[in-house]
């Protein structure tokens, strides 16, 4: 059974038929061609599938596609419509990522943090990215880049 859903994806109204069991992550990647959200664990543990729904970071591997009907979904691709954000520039400058697999999710989580709290301290940054696993960096180059930007 398919259902037509319509939602705002990276500022563009998209309409697509989905079945009741389709996962948002799969729909974004396999049917809409947006590859920045990744599948790292498929059970909400790792945060690599992060996207924003109505400005809030969520794990798209745990969300059914039909749930985003009439919502606003933003992936990392949608955040760069006027180039890299200052936050991304800071990550670049600090060599904050190594393999880069977690980067899209971390960037979304920290973007959400700064939207709510423009001057977070170290602990608030740690808390904001606690749901985004990174196996390479030891996190401090990520935290340093955010601190450098907001200081």
């Amino acid at each position, binding site marked *: 059974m398919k259902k037509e859903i319509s939602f705002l994806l990276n500022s563009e109204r998209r309409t697509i038929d989905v079945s009741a069991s389709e996962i948002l992550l799969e729909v974004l*990647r396999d049917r809409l061609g947006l*590859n*920045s959200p*990744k*599948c*790292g*664990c*498929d*059970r909400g*543990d*790792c945060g*690599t599938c992060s996207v924003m729904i109505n400005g809030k970071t969520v794990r798209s591997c745990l969300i059914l596609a039909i749930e985003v009907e009439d919502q606003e979904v933003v*992936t*990392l*691709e949608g955040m*760069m419509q006027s180039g*890299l954000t200052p936050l*991304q520039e800071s*990550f*670049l*400058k600090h*060599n*904050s*990522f*190594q*393999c*880069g*697999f*977690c*980067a*899209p999710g971390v*960037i979304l989580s920290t973007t959400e943090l700064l939207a709510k709290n423009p001057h977070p301290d170290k602990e608030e*940054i*740690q*808390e904001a*990215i*606690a*749901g*985004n*696993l*990174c*196996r*390479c*960096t*030891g*996190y*401090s*180059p*990520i*935290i340093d880049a955010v601190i450098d930007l907001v200081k």
Partner: protein
Amino acid sequence: MDEYKFVGKSSVRVDGKVKISGAAQFIDDLDFGPNLLYAEVVESKFAHAIINSIDISEAEKIPGVVKIVTGKDFPFRFGLYMHDRYIFAQDRVRFVGEQVAAVIARDAVTAKAAAKLVKVDYTELTPVLSVQQALGDSPFLIHPDLKDYHHVPWFFPQTNSNVAHLRKVRNGNVEEAFADSDFVLDDVYTVPRYAHCALEVHGAVGLLDHSGRLTVWTASQSPHTQRHLFAEALAPLGFQHKDVRVITPFIGGGFGGKAGVSMEILGAALATKVKGNPVKILWSRAQEFYNTYQRQGVVARLKVGVKNDGTITALEHTLYWDAGAYVEYGANVVNAAGLSATGPYRIPNIKIDSYCVYTNLPPGGPYRGFGYSEFLFGLESHINELAKKIKMDPVEFRKKNAIREGDRLTYGSKMNPNGLMEAIDKVAKEIEWGKKETSSDPNKVIGKGFSLFWKAPAMPPNASSSAFLKFNEDASLNILVSGMEIGQGYLTVLAQIAAEVLSVPVEKIRVETPDTDRNPYEWQTVASHVTWGCGNAVKQAAEDAREQIFDLIERAKGKKRDELYLEDECVRSKVEKDFSLPLKNFIISGIQKEDGTFRGGPIIGRGMFMPEFASALSDPETSQGGHPNVHYTVGAAAVKIEVDKQTGKVKIPKVVLAVDCGKAINPDLVNGQITGGILQGIATVLYEDMRFDNKGKLINANFSDYKIPTAMDIPDEVVPIIIEVAQPDGPYGARGMGEHTMIPAAPIIANAVEDALGIRIKSMPITAEKIALAVKNRNEN
């Protein structure tokens, strides 16, 4: 003092922008078109069983199923260092989760559903789940045909046993030395298995086109080694190396787990059964845990003798490695650890036995540190205990015995130049060694722990690297190599090396992940060797290009080549101040003569590197005579912990790690390896641990039950210290350091726990529970 313009600078990563923009493509991001098929494996339920029959009749009936394959389709034995595994299990299974068959279908859901309908009839055998069981009296043989297995000449399988390889090292006379010692300490240390937990799972897509060419896209650290093993394993089907092509996009972390060949063989093999269709196989997170290489567990018995003046006299180190069901890669971990199990110490009398033991647990293999983390836990714990027995400061004790340049290594060669003493002194100063600290909380105590570390690249003696370098019209350039960017920053470092030789800025250099058809040979991106090995190849390729440029200027412009040099993307002359010819004016198009003809043509550099002094040939009884390791990278680390006496919880206010990387081509990236590696190491000490049930099934194959560190779990402060004592044969003096940052984590924490509480914990992990129980037991006794 720094004469370099690009080397030694913290350039921004050349792969930075592609990664922070989400544009970097990993294997599951590639598009293979509407013809793509999906494969799902049928897995063994048992750790050890005979396969009686496989019934695929029900599965075949499912619409959308294209092909079902079993072991019968691929009766070929293969492996990296020892041919002891099959593409699919043949007559028996040897670990829970082993692939027995695969279903290929039009979509992933169908493949998964049909795989559940494949019926395998087994006769269960007694599983061998520990080294003790594997080595006991008349053990059940996991590989009865071991004696027939092809293997590299430096392995010594013990027939009629579960010992796939035994590395023995002998020098001096340990018995006499123990008798002459003032104190001898004997103990046993155990380390469990660990998982790499790269955030990207393993995956492969294979395509055999109708012309007979096999292309395999893999998430891999080892594209050329994969091509070689695919070609070798599938040779009975008529493949030559030229028919096999491996393409490796970015990989989401490796840590050794994506070295060699693990599940990727399935992508190559399955493609041969569905000609003309690409077929994708992607591991789930659970499969990532139980059917890729795991870090091997070890039980290590250690006996060390010492004189009252602090001189270490003798070491006897017996290591029993739980290498799992197949050891085609893991046996070399055992070998490497055996050759270096003295740690970075000068010890005149040694006896080392490193046993590679088959068990019915998943295959062991390479993991960042390659055996050194495992033996260093016991060794550096032991060193502290010895210092305590002879009432010597543990740092002084280490300095007294630390290896120095020119000292004899276990196998007889001489130790390379190194900055170990400098590392020890700087770490001791930074951690304020000797300064006792007390916590403001009466329930908590503060302790400090110290450790040295060392590691050599473990590679075949002829492991080699090569590089092509080609200029573009604007004098920007592309470097073609086949090492893998696994996050460490390798592409950036190579660009910096070429930039230094050719005076072309890093921003004008493109280095990308390889395609074995286009990019020249590289052995593997493992062993912390690519900056050294491939860096040498790239430096040579850049110098080759530079010499071609000078040749051309000499020929076309009549300048003496000795007077020429490169600066700011121009050829300049030491004698003619006004002569400055931009590279872009001739690097592709050549130089025009007065008669209208041209000289030159596109400049292409070529470089290669093989350590021609290395040799794995030695006496199997003593390991004396060869030169198996090219060099050692050394360093020191220390930690300050605050531990809660009631809960056992450890907090880390500060950790310091100094590593001698010879020359930091990019200091920021070196520091990145230190902050990342030390946290990965700390997690193995404090909480990570693979748990198996009594049937050999892994019970914590996910991130909820196998917890890896989050941003909340980091030390308050990490102080990286770079030591630079040049490696004579390294590019600009560089040697590797990526793995080393993880190695000392276990002993620094074990020693700090002992310092804080007076309790010596001899088994990893050192969980809060274990500490709390040890405190309780001590208080009760």
